[in-house]
């Protein structure tokens, strides 16, 4: 039995996500998007993933909640193998929030409905409870007055903050971010990063693909450098930026810093 394998992890309960030998080969592509990725994400970790375009960062993140189906390897989330079809992926996704570069808010629903839809329809919360939580969360991201607005009437930064709240409303154990500020006008990046930093400081486990090195340095507990579908370096922010070992990481950092 490899599905319930918390005994396999020496750090026991602390481990939230365990990735082993992860491979992804898109059918219509000749290169391997992921070529043997191993890593461990513990509760409270803020893992920042950086790397050049096409290096597999998004693919890696999207494999974590099975939006992409891995071609090989395993991912255990809270001790359960998500690649095992016997495990209910929908149930597991309820505990993994995801924030997209292009927000993906539901345009036909108000902010409130966007946020409450999943908790209520999936039976995680009663309607009153969800309303209460929606208000609380919107307060926390500074958007209490937008509760009845429609996504079309929000700025990019506001949309992304609502998207973060929508994911948080399910009380996830981990939040996955795929370049959450890349589609934003420069003046709006700060407001979204502030929300994410607050979340990190409150102890939320996060995996963040981003080009914002400041975020990595400020709240990251670990930084991962990916290239050609592989993790080439993985270290604390201090070591990662202060003392990079890998040659390609050094040349990458010299270009972006």
């Amino acid at each position: 039995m490899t599905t319930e394998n918390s005994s396999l992890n020496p750090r026991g309960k602390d481990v939230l996500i365990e990735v082993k030998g992860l491979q992804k080969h898109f059918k219509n592509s000749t290169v391997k998007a992921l070529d043997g990725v191993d890593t461990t994400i513990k509760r409270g970790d803020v893992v920042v993933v950086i790397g050049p375009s096409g290096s597999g960062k998004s693919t890696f993140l999207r494999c974590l909640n099975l939006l992409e189906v891995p071609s090989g390897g395993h991912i255990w989330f809270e001790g359960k193998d998500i690649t095992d079809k016997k495990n209910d992926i929908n149930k597991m996704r309820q505990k993994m929030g995801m924030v997209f570069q292009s927000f993906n808010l539901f345009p036909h629903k108000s902010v409130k409905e966007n946020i409450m839809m999943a908790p209520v329809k999936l039976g995680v919360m009663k309607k009153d409870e969800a309303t209460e939580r929606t208000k609380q969360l919107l307060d926390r991201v500074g958007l209490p007055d937008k509760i009845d607005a429609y996504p079309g009437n929000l700025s990019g930064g506001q949309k992304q903050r609502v998207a973060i709240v929508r994911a948080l409303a399910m009380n996830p154990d981990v939040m996955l971010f795929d370049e959450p500020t890349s589609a934003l006008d420069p003046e709006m990046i700060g407001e979204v990063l502030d929300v994410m930093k607050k979340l990190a400081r409150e102890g939320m486990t996060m995996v963040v693909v981003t080009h914002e090195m400041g975020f990595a340095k400020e709240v990251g507990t670990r930084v991962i450098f990916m290239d050609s579908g592989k993790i080439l370096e993985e270290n604390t922010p201090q070591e990662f930026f202060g003392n990079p070992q890998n040659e390609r990481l050094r040349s990458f950092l010299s270009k972006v810093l």
Partner: protein
Amino acid sequence: MTEWFNDLKAQFILNFINEGRWKYLLNGLGITLEITFFALLLGISIGVVIAIIRSSYDNTVETMDSGLGHTILKLLNAISKVYLTVIRGTPVVVQLLIMYYIIFATSNNKIFVAVLAFGINSGAYVAEIVRSGIMSIDKGQMEAGRSLGFNYVQAMAFIIIPQAIKNVLPALANEFITLLKETSVSGYIALQDLTKGGYIIIGRTYSAFMPLIAVALIYLILVMFFTWLVGKLERRLRSNDH
């Protein structure tokens, strides 16, 4: 001038007032609306289901690995394709006659037969309209829904279909108007719909002008009314986003 007017008046009285002949039109209108309404419901139900089958198949044909689910989807997709080809490749009158004289030869519930025939016919057109609507929705919408924990059917029902329908509302409205007009062949199975009502009056009065113009006018007013209604609905939906 007055002679012409008096003649018109006499014609009117002959065709509509005498023996309460206007009732043929009114009752016929009722039947037309009844058939159209239920056929519409049936057509939308069939259309949405077929559209979901077809677009699910198109979306997963490359990524899904062979398993029971895929085999079932493949089969449903094949059945849907046959349905679309047959229904869109044959005249609705012929479908109606086949339904009445062959499939339901023993039933004499003509309205039921007509609703079934027109609903099944309309479903084929609705399916293609809704499918184009589903295809027009950004794939990030499905991903966002799935990432929250919705299963495929829930994401379709709560997120994709409402947006898809909204996007194709004008095309659906056109299909509805086409359906309303197409029910005018119901007379082929001796149903007394609006058109047939006018036809019966002609048979009694031996004058075609007034009854036919009246029938045409009623259809026209209905179509204009529904066009206006859909426009209003569309504006209300649109004001919700952007």
